């Protein structure tokens, strides 16, 4: 049994302008101790996928279909009581801007101790010791002094480390990191990424790393999901996604980033404008921007097909090239025709 199994997840927001299908049909599996990266442009549904797993959506948002199983236990429809034991204990999340999740009016120590006491049955003194230990673990110098300080007295990098300490205090099985370093400078980002990598190895937890930075996923992730318009266009091992991209969007993304390889050449941008979820096209959501689009791409959405053991993509070009085995994230019943 996998640690986390997400099947055909659908999440919508019900707004004045209509139903916004922010996540439509996301399926993936996360194994213990693995690092999974989710990439995609702004608005592609990365955060909403994460918030659906945690069930911390805005009031207008709702999971409208699918299944999320943690250690075999169904979470969709499980109710707030169950979710409260999941959040913080089994799955923790850290956000892009640690200031929004730290309370400016309490000391860092107070907030850490609160979080630890909420999720474990440690008393005040034990929780204090655990908090100091966690701060030390995330390389905060002089943790006793830092405990007495307020969040604004800490730099951005320091606050993000406090957030990581808080998220890890209860030894979750899964850490979801939603753009944890986007607001940080590269040298500070390097510190935080190195920290996450070493903690992941030490504690053996799984990480879901959400980012738009392909460099960050290349450095950190075992597996990668590429999202577009609320769906997964491609998923596979990091090497497969980078060296053998099979969806036209992923290919475009790789061509559009400056790298040592395209030095001195023109970048090849993806043309057109990002998708409007309120007006999703009938076929492949990327078709309006795709240079390789065929007639079928405009008519019909492509299901995810298996490229090899480590790779699946939802792009008609592969079907044309003879890949037509439906992708099954469990890998149990192979051979189904599309």
């Amino acid at each position, binding site marked *: 049994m996998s640690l986390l199994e997400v099947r055909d997840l659908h999440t919508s927001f019900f707004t004045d302008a209509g139903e916004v299908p922010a996540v439509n049909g996301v399926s993936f599996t996360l194994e213990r101790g693995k690092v999974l990266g989710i990439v995609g442009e702004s608005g592609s549904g990365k955060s909403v996928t994460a918030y659906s797993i945690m069930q911390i959506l805005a009031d207008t948002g709702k999971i409208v279909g699918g299944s999320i199983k943690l250690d075999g236990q169904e979470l969709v429809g499980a109710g707030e009581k169950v979710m409260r034991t999941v959040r913080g204990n089994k799955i923790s999340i850290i956000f892009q801007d640690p200031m929004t999740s730290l309370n400016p009016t309490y000391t860092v120590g107070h907030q850490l101790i609160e979080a630890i006491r909420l999720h474990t049955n440690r008393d005040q003194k034990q929780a204090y010791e655990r908090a100091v230990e966690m701060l030390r673990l995330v390389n905060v110098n002089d943790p006793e002094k830092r405990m007495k300080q307020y969040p604004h007295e800490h730099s951005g990098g320091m606050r993000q480390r406090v957030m990581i300490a808080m998220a890890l205090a209860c030894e979750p099985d899964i850490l979801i990191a939603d753009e944890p370093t986007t607001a940080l400078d590269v*040298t500070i980002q390097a510190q935080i990424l190195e920290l996450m990598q070493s903690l992941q190895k030490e504690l053996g937890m799984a990480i879901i790393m959400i980012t738009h930075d392909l*460099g960050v996923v290349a*450095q950190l992730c075992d597996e990668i999901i590429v999202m577009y318009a609320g769906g997964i266009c491609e998923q596979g091992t*990091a090497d497969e996604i*980078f060296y053998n991209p099979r969806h036209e969007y992923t290919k*475009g993304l790789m061509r*559009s980033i400056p*790298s040592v390889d395209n030095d001195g050449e023109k970048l090849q*941008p*993806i043309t057109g404008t990002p998708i409007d979820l309120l007006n999703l096209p009938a076929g492949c959501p990327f078709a309006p921007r795709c240079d390789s689009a065929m007639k079928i791409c405009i008519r019909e959405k492509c299901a995810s097909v298996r490229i090899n053991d480590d790779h699946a993509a939802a792009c008609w070009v592969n079907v044309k090239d003879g890949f037509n085995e439906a992708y099954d994230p469990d890998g149990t019943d192979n051979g189904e025709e599309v």
Partner: protein
Amino acid sequence: MAEQEKTPLVDIRHLKKYFNISTGMFSSKPLKAVDDVSFTIKKGETLGLVGESGCGKTTVGRTILQLYKPTGGEIIYDGKPVRTAKDLAAFRTKATMVFQDPYSSLNPRMTVADIIAEPLDVHNLCKTKEERRERVLQLMDYVGLNSEHASRYAHEFSGGQRQRIGIARSLAVNPEFIVCDEPVSALDVSIQAQVINMFDELQDKLGLTYLFIAHDLLVVRHISDRIAVMYLGKMVELAEARDIYDHPLHPYSKSLISSVPVPDPKVARANQRIVLKGDIPSPLNAPSGCPFRTRCQYATDACAQSMPEFKEVKPGHFVACHRTEEIN
């Protein structure tokens, strides 16, 4: 060509910008946002300016254009110092700025045409309504905006399109030199590439000279001929883009460049990152001597004593470090 080598278009000498920060009811302290920075930019060249947030990049750009009054130093444009109000007025028709945030830098109540034409109106550059309209359409064409967009409002556009509007506006005065302050940082990668290419094409077409400020080193490396690295208000290294990226000499640049996440898993896994200890000091309490010494693994007593000189150690390669020879 040889002539241009001799007189750079932009020649910045010992530029300083201090802000007075009040530290109590009757006391204040100078914040040295830019402290003795010198560099030149040739005509048609792109100089990239990188460094961590708060190191003074924006302040350099704004002080060159004298949106901030310089605390010291000299700005020499096309061989002539910009000193008097008259010099400045002339300079402002040749040099402009593109801002980072395409969301907040445009007035939401103005149409695209009026936003782009505003500098034309301010400097009285068009004699007739017709001329103004033609010029606006030409500018929109330069940046790849559809003429139908002219009467729409900025808030109706995506980030990439808004950045194009901002750039069209900057081009209105027919500038020779543009300070681009993080012009693609707020954009998604796929849109970023469109805007970067546009900067390239405009440079070829109009012979523009750029000071290109950004914190994304891969973007800066792609677009720049030379790159300057700043740390805490000081310039620590300056060289050809490839030279600095492949062989950084200053300890800070070494760490900065090794920290860039490379979008290639095999390279990224093999990469030996030089992870710095500690945080950037506050510019209000900058260390004595070399500003980097509190995080530098090579620092010695001498580094605390005096600020290293910004020296040319190889042709065209400048470094400010006491120990350049020993550590490289």
